[in-house]
């Protein structure tokens, strides 16, 4: 509002803690070509949302689950849409960061997933390796800032939008394990995107383990790492 100083997050948090108000929330959601929905009692009122479980913490207390009502789930017939998005993937990485420069090297990595029947195992492996590279790009390199200096100005190319090169990867130390199908008749499940996703939290967790610094935005660049280690 004009004339008023914006409230800072620390001052809002301090006030919420002092008044024993809600200071944290955890939610669970479920999708089956449509989101589950439920109603929750909060601060003497009711609140409905596309989630099926909600827990809140007041002040410095423990999380407590709220009793839900009017729970609605999308119908099980939706499973007949025929697309299964249940492929799961996990990634482990070991990183080395040079304290003086902030240069990060992925010394070793391992991704494991289950994708049902792999129709062309060689391409599944290639996708997993390529997904790893793309995850490295998202975590450490690729940035699309808004406003005038960003790619929206139409002037960006691969010189500014940096994607992973061979030298950003553990070319000889990336192990991919494809687990056998859960059941013999399990249909193929898509893996194109899931193989990139765990790479990002794995890298950020490794960086946290190495530096003690929890980064909250991507990419985590060499300059940011150098600052964290200074």
């Amino acid at each position: 509002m004009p004339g008023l100083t914006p409230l800072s997050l620390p001052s809002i948090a301090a006030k919420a803690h002092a008044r024993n108000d809600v200071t944290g929330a955890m939610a669970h959601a479920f999708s089956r070509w449509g989101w589950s929905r439920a109603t929750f009692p909060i601060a003497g009122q009711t609140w409905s949302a596309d989630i099926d479980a909600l827990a809140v913490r007041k002040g410095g207390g423990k999380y407590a689950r709220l009793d839900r009502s009017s729970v609605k789930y999308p119908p099980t017939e939706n499973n007949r849409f025929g697309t299964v998005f249940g492929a799961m993937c996990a990634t482990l990485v070991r990183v080395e960061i040079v304290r003086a420069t902030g240069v990060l090297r992925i010394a070793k990595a391992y991704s494991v997933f289950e994708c049902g029947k792999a129709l062309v195992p060689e391409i599944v492996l290639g996708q997993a390796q390529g997904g790893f590279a793309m995850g490295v790009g998202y975590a450490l390199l690729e940035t699309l800032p808004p406003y005038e200096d960003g790619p929206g100005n139409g002037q960006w190319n691969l010189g500014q939008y940096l994607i992973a090169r061979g030298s950003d990867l553990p070319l000889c130390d990336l192990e991919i394990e494809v687990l056998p199908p859960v059941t013999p008749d399990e249909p193929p499940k898509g893996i194109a995107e899931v193989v990139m996703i765990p790479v990002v939290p794995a890298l950020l967790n490794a960086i946290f383990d190495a530096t003690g610094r929890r980064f909250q935005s991507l990419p985590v660049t060499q300059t940011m790492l150098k600052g964290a280690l200074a």
Partner: protein
Amino acid sequence: MTTLSLTINGRAHGPMDVRDDLTMNDFLREHLGMTGTKFGCGAAQCLSCAVIVDNPDGTSYAGPTCVVSAASFNGKAIRTVEGHAKNGELSALQKAFIDHFAFQCGYCTAGFLNESQVLLERLAKKPVVRADLEKTIAEALDSHLCRCTGYIKYHEAVRDVILADPGRYLV
């Protein structure tokens, strides 16, 4: 306009008149119909457009065609992806790329193939020790971008070709 004569895959082309602002990439793709050479970023960053340039001193390098004029290739000899197979038989590298499923969309493949061929020819003249091989391959291919298979399969394909003939490429 400039008069252009050059050798492509061992065959003489020209003399012919080309516009001064015609890029080498457009010359290959649009004038000669040799579309195996791709156009990627147009800024010499991805090297999907790279061809082999053979220097008079017997050395070669893989260089971009997107940011250089066709006229600048006057008198030069180049090789493109169309020139690797001989008498209908794919080269050892091409076979290895296929055996390894090294590419998916194929857009970067011609560039990787040309760069890898330059590496093989360089190693044939100046072999490296086995312990340096992974680093040698990685450094040779590092300026090429791939967004599908993530480099590892290209790396392994090139390594297999070299290890299949260690007397030629390794000391």
